[in-house]
């Protein structure tokens, strides 16, 4: 990469890269436009008129609020479980070498490497086999399982950079294990955990494939949207909800980026 510092990119490459980025972003921007359309029966483009009416209509919809509330509660609890399990796993794997270490990494990654439908149907048949009724907690059981990997990845990357001699120095200075964890390890891995937690929250908040198998009658926000996609009844309300979901998921992503960016990745790092 260094040799290209003074050469400009070929025009063809610029166009291809620019078109690629446009392809990724234009559909999302279109969602923002449709949230304001006055048309309620079809997906007509260009919109015949613009209005703010649907925001008020959506605000007064109890089913949307219920779905949003459930999604937030599920994501919050799954994130906490994933934070505990992921951090423990990362600490164990990076702190020492032992038999089966590679297997543990594979086990953590598996729920997200296999297609979601497999995780979903496996959990569903296990629940029916064990006669566990579908509930709030069965949704969380599924979500926490695949959220562990995000926390784990972030924590492992950070543990690798926290030097072992820091821990030894702390112990030499008389701190016990708990004090070392509280005053030395935690401040060092804190931002990585926060970033992992935010991504886990975003992942859980958006998850639909596993949820369709592990939820009974409850509707998380993605399930509500899926119903609307399969059988559109409330197009304008769906448009508004879609736009809000985009905005809500952008925040944790940006937050996680600012928490984990390295010195060499930020502006001026290309020197």
């Amino acid at each position, binding site marked *: 990469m260094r040799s290209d510092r003074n050469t400009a990119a070929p025009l063809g490459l610029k166009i291809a890269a620019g078109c690629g980025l446009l392809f990724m972003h234009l559909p999302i921007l279109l969602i923002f436009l449709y949230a304001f359309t006055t048309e309620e029966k079809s997906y007509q483009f260009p919109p015949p008129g613009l209005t703010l009416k649907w925001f008020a209509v959506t605000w007064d919809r109890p089913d949307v609020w219920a779905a949003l509330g459930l999604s937030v509660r599920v994501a919050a609890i799954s994130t906490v479980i994933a934070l505990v399990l992921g951090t423990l796993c990362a600490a164990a794997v990076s702190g020492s070498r032992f038999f089966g270490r590679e297997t543990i990494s594979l086990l953590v990654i598996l*729920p997200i490497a296999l*297609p979601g439908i*497999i995780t979903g149907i496996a959990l569903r048949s296990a629940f029916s086999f064990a006669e566990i009724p579908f509930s709030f907690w069965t949704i969380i059981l599924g979500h926490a399982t695949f959220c562990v990997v995000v926390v784990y990845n972030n924590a492992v990357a950070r543990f690798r950079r926290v030097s072992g001699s820091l821990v030894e120095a702390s112990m030499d200075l008389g701190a016990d294990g708990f004090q070392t964890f509280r005053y030395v390890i935690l401040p060092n891995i804190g931002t990585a955990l926060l970033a992992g937690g935010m991504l886990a929250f975003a992942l859980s908040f958006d998850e639909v494939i596993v949820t369709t198998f592990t939820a009974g009658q409850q509707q998380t926000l993605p399930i509500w949207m899926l119903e609307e996609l399969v059988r559109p009844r409330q197009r304008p309300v769906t448009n508004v909800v879609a736009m809000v979901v985009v905005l809500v*998921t952008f925040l944790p992503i940006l937050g996680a980026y600012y928490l984990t960016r390295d010195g060499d990745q930020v502006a001026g790092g290309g020197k």
Partner: protein
Amino acid sequence: MSALAERSILEGRAGPAGRLSDFFWRNPKILLLLMLTPPLLWLGVIYLGSLFALLLQSFFSIDDFSGLINYEFTLSTYRQLLIPSNFDIILRTVVMAALVTLASAAIAFPIAYYAARYARGKWKVVFYLGVMLPLWSSYLVKVYAWKLILAKEGIVTWALAKLHLLWLLDAWLSLPVVGGNSLSISYTGTFIVFIYVWMPFMILPIQAALERVPGNLIEASADLGGNPAQTFRHVIFPLALPGIIAGSIFTFSLTLGDYIIPQIIGSSRLFIGQAVYAQQGTAGNIPLAAAFTVVPIVIMGLYLWMAKRQGAFDAL
């Protein structure tokens, strides 16, 4: 001397917390065990347990008359996978996943190439966030956006009408296989949406692989008389290949298991994910659903094994 030596070994810490801390320091294995037990219990029992239970069910069969599961070991459920209608589903899904992967690589490569080799400072951040935001934004919202775009009254039809190119769309839709009544109920539509949703997963691994290509290799190639095209063909591309393969693991696996995109945007012909969903839900045939899930597991197993031989995991 001996007194000094004795004093250099600190006394045990006081209090239960201190004693516990000392105990863990002396017995790191026990601490390790305590740390690993909760995650292993969760993933090992809940996740692997369910997975094995599912795989086990694929060796049972369903009684054609009563509709109940017959708990006897049999391979007859797997034999059902080979009957033409089911085998078509598998073939269709694998071909779609392969095409989506190839097209994703073609679109992702220029973005990753520019980001890795030309973007500097502020632009580097723009490219990074420009990839991360669509990658992480809501799956359903992305699918929904394409429902708006591909609808008959939507933006594609409008734009083509303005350009007086509607005849082109009609000609494409009248083609066999890829065509259909409208874009949103054709394979073409399914294909576009698959690319849109899974392509971003391809960019970062390719970019990581390209960033690791040493600059002096490129200079050496130029010194030896290679023109830029030759350098790309013989130096850069082979070194980027592990990144492409690493990215293709995501696009291939995710397309293989998806059942929502073809259900919302696509023809009525099923993909593996939809078949699993239909078998376990309305048909109530859990053994066949389980056998269907084994197909992507086996295909991904082979794929990962090949990717590992190509060194793709170092590019992750």
